[in-house]
C-alpha cells in the first residue's frame, strides 16, 4: 500500500469521467431469490462499514478518479437500512467526490426501510433519485419471493417517495411461479399510477444456491415457466409504452429523460469505480495502470491488440473489508481492444438505441448480426439523424441471450 500522498501529484488521468457505485451489504432479511452479497441484520457492523466505505472512497479520490463524477449510485443490499448512517455516507461521499453539476445521485431502498424523515434527510444531503424494490403489488407473489414486506407497505413507500418530490424508479419481477397474467397486469397498472418515472422489469431467475433454488429442487415451488415470463414481458412492454414509459433497455422503461444514467454507464462501456466488499469496478487501461502501479496490483498485460480496460471485482467478506478496505482489487479481468469492442456491442444491444455500424464492425460482429437479423432477432434502424444502427427486435428482447452470445462470441472462430 503506497501513501496516497505520493500519487496525488501525478498528472491527471485520461478525461473519461468515472461513475461511482457504493455497495451497502445489509438487508432486513434475505429474499428467497437473491444471490447478491448482503448480510441480514449486522447492526453492529453498519457504522464501521460506513467509515470503511468513506475511507475507501477517500483513497480513490487521491488518484483524481473522482474529480468529475457523472453519477453516484448507492446500491445494496438495502442502503436505507443504515438510517442516519446512510445520510452520513451520502454527505461524506459528496464531500469526497467532485460531482458533476446535476449529477444523478441514486439511493436504492426497499419498502420496509423507506420512511419520510429519512427520505427527506437524504434529499437534503443531495440524493435526487430513489430506486425502490417493490417487486410486486400482490401479497401472494411477495410471499413466494420471500420479501419481508407486503403490498400495502410497498404502496406506502411509493407514496412517501412521490410526496418527497424526488424522482424514483421501481423494480418489478415477473414470471414468478403462481403469478397470473391478471395479477401481473394489476401490478403494472399500479406501478404506472404510483408516480414512478422509471421501471425495471425482470423475469425471475432461479440462481444456484438460493433458498428459492432449494424450494424448486425440492418440488415445493414450481420452476418459473419461461412462456409465462415471455407473456409478461410482452404485457409490460404494451402497458408501459401506452403509459408513456417506453423501453430503453431489455429490462428498463422510463419516461423520456428519466433513463437511469448510472445504468447507461454500464451498457455503454463507461468507467466506474465500485466501493464496498463485493463491488465491481471498471477503469480504462490508463486509469487502471496508474492505480495498479501505485498499489502494486497486477499490471495490464502487453497484448496485441492492446489492453483497453480492466475490470476488478472485490470478493471480501464484510469483516475483512472493514479491517482492510483497500486490501486487494479481487480478480482482475483485462479486456483488450477487441474484447472491449465486443463487450460494448453486446451491452449496447441491450438498449433500444443499439449500436452503430462502426461499433458492429469494430466488434467483428457484422456477420453474426446478419445471421441474427435472418432469425428476426435484430434489425437495422435509422435514427432521426439519419444514422443506421443495429437494434434488437421485439423477438430479440425475449431471446436476448441468443443475441448477446452471438455478438460476444463473434470473434471466437477467427481467434482460436
Amino acid at each position: 500500500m503506497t501513501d496516497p500522498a505520493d500519487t496525488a501529484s501525478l498528472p491527471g488521468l485520461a478525461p473519461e469521467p468515472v461513475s461511482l457505485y457504493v455497495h451497502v451489504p445489509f438487508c432486513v432479511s434475505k429474499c428467497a431469490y437473491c444471490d447478491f452479497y448482503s448480510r441480514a441484520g449486522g447492526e453492529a457492523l453498519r457504522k464501521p462499514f460506513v467509515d470503511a466505505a468513506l475511507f475507501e472512497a477517500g483513497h480513490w479520490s487521491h488518484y483524481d478518479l473522482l474529480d468529475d463524477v457523472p453519477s453516484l449510485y448507492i446500491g445494496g443490499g438495502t442502503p436505507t437500512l443504515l438510517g442516519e448512517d446512510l445520510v452520513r455516507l451520502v454527505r461524506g461521499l459528496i464531500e469526497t467526490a467532485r460531482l458533476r453539476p446535476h449529477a444523478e445521485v441514486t439511493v436504492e431502498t426497499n419498502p420496509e426501510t423507506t420512511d419520510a424523515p429519512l427520505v427527506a434527510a437524504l434529499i437534503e444531503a443531495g440524493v435526487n433519485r430513489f430506486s425502490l424494490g417493490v417487486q410486486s403489488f400482490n401479497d401472494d407473489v411477495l410471499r413466494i419471493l420471500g420479501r419481508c414486506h407486503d403490498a400495502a407497505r410497498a404502496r406506502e413507500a411509493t407514496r412517501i417517495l412521490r410526496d418527497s418530490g424526488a424522482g424514483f424508479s421501481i423494480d418489478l419481477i415477473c414470471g414468478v411461479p403462481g403469478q397470473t397474467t391478471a395479477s401481473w397486469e394489476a401490478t403494472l397498472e399500479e406501478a404506472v399510477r404510483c408516480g414512478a418515472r422509471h421501471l425495471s422489469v425482470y423475469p425471475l431467475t432461479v440462481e444456484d444456491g438460493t433458498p428459492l433454488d432449494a424450494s424448486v429442487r425440492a418440488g415445493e415451488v414450481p420452476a418459473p415457466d419461461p412462456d409465462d415470463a415471455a407473456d409478461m414481458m410482452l404485457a409490460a412492454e404494451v402497458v408501459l409504452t401506452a403509459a408513456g414509459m417506453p423501453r430503453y433497455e431489455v429490462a428498463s422503461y422510463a419516461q423520456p429523460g428519466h433513463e437511469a444514467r448510472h445504468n447507461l454507464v454500464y451498457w455503454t462501456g463507461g468507467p466506474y469505480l465500485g466501493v464496498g466488499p463485493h463491488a465491481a469496478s471498471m477503469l480504462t487501461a490508463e486509469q487502471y495502470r496508474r492505480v495498479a502501479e501505485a498499489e502494486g496490483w497486477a499490471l495490464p498485460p502487453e497484448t496485441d491488440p492492446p489492453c483497453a480496460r480492466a475490470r476488478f471485482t472485490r470478493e471480501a467478506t464484510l469483516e475483512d473489508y472493514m479491517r482492510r478496505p483497500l486490501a486487494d482489487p479481487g480478480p482482475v479481468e483485462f479486456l483488450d481492444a477487441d474484447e472491449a469492442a465486443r463487450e460494448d456491442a453486446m451491452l449496447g444491444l441491450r438498449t433500444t438505441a443499439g449500436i452503430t455500424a462502426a461499433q458492429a464492425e469494430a466488434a467483428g460482429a457484422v456477420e453474426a448480426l446478419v445471421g441474427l437479423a435472418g432469425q428476426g432477432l435484430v434489425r437495422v434502424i435509422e435514427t432521426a439523424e439519419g444514422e443506421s444502427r443495429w437494434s434488437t427486435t421485439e423477438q430479440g428482447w425475449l431471446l436476448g441471450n441468443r443475441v448477446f452470445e452471438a455478438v460476444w462470441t463473434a470473434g471466437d472462430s477467427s481467434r482460436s
Partner: protein
Amino acid sequence: MTDPTLIRNFSIIAHIDHGKSTLADRVLQLTHTIEDRDMVEQVLDSMDIERERGITIKAQAVRVLYTADDGVEYTLNLIDTPGHVDFTYEVSRSLQACEGALLVVDATQGVEAQTVANAIMAMNAHLEIIPLINKIDLPSADAERVRHEIEEALAIPADEAVLASGKTGEGVRDALEAVVRLVPHPVGDPHAPLKALIFDSFFDAYRGVVALIRVVDGHINAGMKVSLMAAGTVIDVEEVGVRRPAHVPVDRLGVGEVGYLVTGLKDTSLVKVGDTVTLAKHGAVEPLPGYREVKPMVYTGLFPIDGDQYPELRDALDKLRLNDPSVIYEPESSHALGFGFRCGFLGLLHMEIIKERLEREFDLDLLATAPSVEYHVYTTNGEMISIHSPQDMPDPGTVDHIEEPYLKVTILVPPEFVGAIMELTELHRSTFVNMQYLSATTVEMHYEMPLSELIMDFFDQLKSRTRGYASLDYEVTGYRTSKLVKLDVLLAGKPVDALSFIVHKDKAFARGKMLTEKLRGIIPRQMFEVPIQAAIGGKIIARETVRAMRKDVIAKCYGGDISRKRKLLEKQKKGKKRMKQVGTIEVPQEAFMAILKVDD
C-alpha cells in the same frame, strides 16, 4: 528356468468391487516385489480409467518370490484378470494359465453373480479354488454367512476359507501359504515340443506386440523360430522374460513358467488370446484347447461431434486397436451425424471404456448412437445378411425372417427382490427358466433373454430396482427367430437415421411412444417448433412436439454482473458445441441414447 515343483500359478477372481486389486497390491508388498515407498493403489491396473473406476480391464501377470513357512522360496505367478462379464473369454484364458485361484468374496456382500460365474469357470479349468473372505476389517463383515453362502452356492468347502483384509494386510500371508500348500505345481513335459498359451497381449511402441504366455510343455528362448498356431504366423522370438512387474529378460522360460514374449510383430490382431505358441519346425500337432475367435457382442456408431475430427478418430481407433484387438470398426456414414465408425465391442462396459479412452487419450469429443446387436436377416431369396446397424436393415419386403442373439442370464438376488426381478424381466421379453435358493439370503434365477433387451438399460434397472443387491451374469446361447421391425424417428418431418432402432413388433408402439416422449424432454426448445415422430415403414405411430422457445434472456446486467453473465453465455455456447446440429436442430448427445432409457 525354475523348477516346476517350486512354481505356483494362480489367479485372483472376484465379483467387481470385492477387493481383488487391493489384495494383489498387498501380495506385491508382502513379497517385496514392490517396496512400500513405490506403492500406488491398484498397481496392476495401470490405466487411469481402471484406477478411477476400480476395475481391471487388461489382464496382468506378475512374478513374485515368496519364502513360505517351510523355509523354501517359491515362485508365484499372480495372474490378475478382468472381473466383468464382458471379458469372460479373456478371463477363461487367464485361468487356463493357472493351477489355482483365490476366490475372493466380500465379507459384507457375500456371493454375487460373478463370484458364481468366475468360480464355475475356475472349476471348468480344473483349478484348485481357495476361498478367501475379504474385507473382514469392516464392521458389517459377516464371515460366517459368507462361508455358508460359498458352500451352498458353489459347493466349495469353506470351513478353511482364508479370512483377510486387503486394506490392513491381515491374512494375506495365510493366503499365500494356502496357495503354496494347496495349489498344485505345474506339470508338463520339458522334452516335448514347445506349447505355450497366449493369455494376453499388448502393444509396445518400441518393441511391437508383446504376448503374455504360460509355458505348458518344452521351453522357449530368444532366437527361436516359433509359430502362433491359430493365427498361422511364424516369428523369431526377440526376447522372453518375466514381469516383476517391470520386464526382466531371462534366457528361457520352461515348463510351468509365466512370462512375456516379444514378438516383433506390429499387428496385434496376429497375436490372439488363447492361441498356442509352438516350434515353427517339428512343433506340436495339437494346439492347446479352448481357443476361439473373439466376436463383438454390441455395436454402436461413434461419430466425432466436430466432423473435422473424423481423421483423428480413425487414427485413434487404429492406435487403440493395437492394445485391444477385440475392438472392431468400419466406416459408417449417417445423414444426421456425418462420417463415423460402426464399432463392435465385447459388451456395454467395454464399449463405455473404449469411448472414454478415445475421448481422453486422444482428446476427441464423440457421440455414440444407441448400441445394437448383430442381427441375422434372412431374405426371401434365401440369403443371410449379418447387420450391425439399423441403417443396414434391408427393405421389409425382401425380408423373410430375422434372428437375434439370445442369452442365458443368471441373476443372484436376495429373496425380497424376486418380485422386482420378475417384473423387470417381463418388460424385457425374457423367459423364466428356473430359480433356486442358494441360501436364506440369495436366490439364483435363470432366464432366457435376447441380448438386445439386455443392452436396453437392463443392468441399470436391475441395480436400481434391487437397490444394488442384484448381480448378473450371462452367456450367449445362439440365435433365435424374432418378429423384429425397424423403427424410425423423424425430427421436424425428416427421418434421423442415427435415431432408428430395431425393436420387437409387439413392443414397437409402446417404445415409439415412450421414445418420443423422452426426446421431447431431451431436445431443448429451439427458435421454432420441432415435431418428433416415430414411424414404422412410413406409418407414424407416435408424435410429440417441442414447442418453440420464447424466452431466454438474462435481464439483469449491471457492473458486477457483466463478467459473470458473459461467462454464462460462454458456457451456454460450449454446451451447444457438445450438441449435434441435425439440419437446423440442435440435438444433445443423450438423445441418441434415449432409446436405452425408455423403461424408466
